[in-house]
């Protein structure tokens, strides 16, 4: 299972690339019970990394407290319009997804 595509927006302005990423993931804590009273097993993104021109520009480790459909915004220097940025996440079940966007 690969999950839904991420929405990535990367904008170049004043020498800085602003990156906004919206991922599609349940981010189940493992503490919630379903209607039948059964615990819903934890299912959450554990690691995220963003790369530009083969260089990691941000990496993160997450726990279950990151909100459902995670959002991250950050800025890095060096990138230019037309270049690509890619973001990869891996969750606790080993699911993985990578998406790419062009810097505007």
């Amino acid at each position: 299972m690969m999950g839904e595509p991420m929405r990535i927006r990367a904008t170049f302005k004043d020498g800085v690339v602003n990156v906004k990423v919206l991922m599609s993931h349940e981010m189940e804590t493992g503490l919630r019970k379903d209607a039948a009273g059964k615990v819903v097993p934890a299912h959450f993104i554990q690691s995220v990394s963003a790369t530009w021109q083969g260089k990691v520009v941000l990496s993160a480790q997450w726990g279950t407290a990151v909100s459902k459909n995670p959002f991250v915004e950050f800025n890095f220097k060096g990138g230019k319009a037309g270049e690509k940025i890619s973001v990869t996440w891996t969750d606790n079940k080993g699911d993985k997804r990578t998406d790419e966007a062009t810097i505007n």
Partner: protein
Amino acid sequence: MNRIRRDMIKAGGGASLLALVAAAGFVRLGTAAAAEWNKAAFEVKTVAEAFKALGAGTPANSADILMKAPDIAENGAVVPIGIESRIPGTESIAVLIEKNPNPLAASFDIPAGTETMFTTRVKMAETSNVYALVKANGKYFVSKKEIKVTLGGCGG
């Protein structure tokens, strides 16, 4: 002849073993570069234990860590938090929520060239202090802010 052959086999065996070890080492290096998920830090139940598991010990308070977050969050399931570190040499920033079942929410590694700030959204079980832990030049600094939560965002 025979001895030479045996030596060759031995040498060959040794070489491939070495290659194997090197390959194993390389693989381990590869995953280390991607940073293994810090299970211990994410699974402890108090901020102090999380600081310890992150190697932060007792971080010094700093006024150079700015936290942009609401004073009151109506929905604990989605609390926007922005953290900016103005401490020179900032390498990583972690977010911890004291009253959550597991306080450590997220830890960001910030390479040179990336601004030492980010925005994300976290879940808060109840009204709690939120800590921003910054690692800069190998030293740890912290700042906290209380966020009141009207409707909890965990369990349910």
